[in-house]
């Protein structure tokens, strides 16, 4: 079995990377971070996995089909949060409507958490889709075949 050290290290790092992604995700409204960065870090864990174990193995864990669903779900999560605030009587993305009784705008906090979660999902799955397509694409077409 070749590259044993790399494979063991990757297995060791995989979970902490995802944990870090979740930290960046949920800490985003207090410090640097947020859905975009978290999504990229989350995707990096799987990209590292693909580097060490091959794309086929990674696709067993996260098939392309699941990524499409995650992309759609992420975008909808964001947009429907906005629609939900509309249904609650505020304008689009008027988060205060989520918790109107709050004296310190807690609704803003919940709202941005929900939206950032959507961003995170969408970015992670889009990053991985791009990676899958670049690494998994067929060889270049011959100049003569154009």
């Amino acid at each position, binding site marked *: 079995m070749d590259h044993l050290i790399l494979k063991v290290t990757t297995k060791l790092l995989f979970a902490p990377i995802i944990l870090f992604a979740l930290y960046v995700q949920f800490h985003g409204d207090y410090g640097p971070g947020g859905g975009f960065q978290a999504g990229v870090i989350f995707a990096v864990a799987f990209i590292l996995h693909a580097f060490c174990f091959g794309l086929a193995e990674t696709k067993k864990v996260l098939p392309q089909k699941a990524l*499409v*669903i995650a*992309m*759609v779900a992420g*975008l*909808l999560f964001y*947009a*429907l949060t*906005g*629609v939900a605030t*509309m*249904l*609650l*009587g*505020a*304008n*689009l*993305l*008027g*988060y*205060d409507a989520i918790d109107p009784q709050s004296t310190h705008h807690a609704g803003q906090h919940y709202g941005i958490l929900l939206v950032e979660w959507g961003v995170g999902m969408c970015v992670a799955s889009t990053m991985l889709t791009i990676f899958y397509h670049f690494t998994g694409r067929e060889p270049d077409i011959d100049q003569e075949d*154009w």
Partner: protein
Amino acid sequence: MSLIAQLPVLPIIIPLVAAPLTLLLPKPRLPWVWASVVAWVTFAACAWLLATVASTGMISYHLGDWAPPLGIEYRVDLANALVLFLVSGVAALVFAFSYHSVRAEVDAAQTPLFYGAMLICLTGLLGVTITGDAFNVFVFLEISSLSTYALVAMGARRDRRALTAAFNYLVMGTIGATFFVIGIGLLYQATGTLNMADLHERLIGQDNRMVQAGFAFIVVGIGLKLAMFPLHLWLPNAYTYAPSAVSAFLAATATKVAVYVLIRFFFSVFNFDFAFIGAAFTYVLLPLGIAGMFIASLAAVFQDDVKRLLAYSSVGQIGYMLLGLSFATVEGLTASLVHVFNHALMKGALFMAVACVVLRAGSHSINAFAGLGKRMPVTTWAIILSGLSLIGVPLTVGFVSKWYLLDAAFSSGHGYSGFLIVASSLIALLYVGRLAEVMLLREPPSEGKYAFPAKEAPLAMLIPMWVLVIANIYFGIRTDLTGGIAQRAAEALMLTAGGAP
């Protein structure tokens, strides 16, 4: 939730929420059904918005309940309500039209992505139009452009040159967007605000290098997006190699929205005290508009590919819009807005007709059109009627545009340009006439590459196409509808800009 209060945001949120869902629908029919229904609902919202604005005046909508100028504001007045109505209306027709054309030209596996990208593109175009925030314009411009690049590249199944066309467009479009955002950045540096109305207030009396540079960057950036004459090089290839339904959609909407953005920046962000703006009208828009009218139209005469012919003609027609704009009078601005609307009607109909021919003949070379009058008479007459409209024959919208333009040219003291408008219309007569000659007078080839059985396009394509053709005539007779709204919009814009009414 009150639907009226949320009306301004509906044209954006409906296609945006619907777009990702197309990816989950089973192929091949359902993504199209879904996208078409959504486009019609969006159109209904835009029509309602236009009616509301026409009766009650300007509407302002605060996203996230953050008050402008800090928050993003959607600001709908007559000028953008008209463009919203146009873009969503064309979208509704093109989406309904596209099923057979897309099935023939785009990979089956890509159809859900295709309709998703079309909806995202629609969202972007409507967003550019509706927003009252300068940076938000850039964001939506990129949303529409990025999806457009993908849509153009999807023509690669039929012709690999679509890939280079899309890449070319990507490079030019990105340079345009970058210039635009640099311009916005400079204005932000000078004023500390991004809200258009607030920018307008704070730019009054400012005439320094930074504002001048910002202005120049914005004009060049938008010029690239709207295919202003020497910056049009991306357009002919992009329109030629894109799938036909995409060509029809883009030709009728994308450049029109860019013209609207130019108008918005000239009249609602900058003002006539700003010395540069007069120079831009006289030394940039006027000569480039006229150059486009002649050079691009002449180039169209010599094209052997009908889609490319129409694309060059589009560049020429944009010249008319810039010319009207450059007079800087209410009449000129009215003519420009009317032509934005009318040109979308004619080019939409023409590109749809070409899509019908491509479906049956498999080619958009002019040779495929030989004897088309015998093989596809319904399509042929659609081309001829909208071609007449392109020339500016009375009772069509083209005539209305030219009439308003001539009126504006003579009343603003640019009488010579009136003659140039007529002269360039004669060039349009040449290329439309050439197409008509090929279609009506030549015999259809009975064998060889361009021979195909005499069969009309399916009704699902003919009906939306003829709706646009009839719109060409309807709005050519009922001139008070578009002309009236455009005039009121132009008066409001001129009032903000501080020019003589």
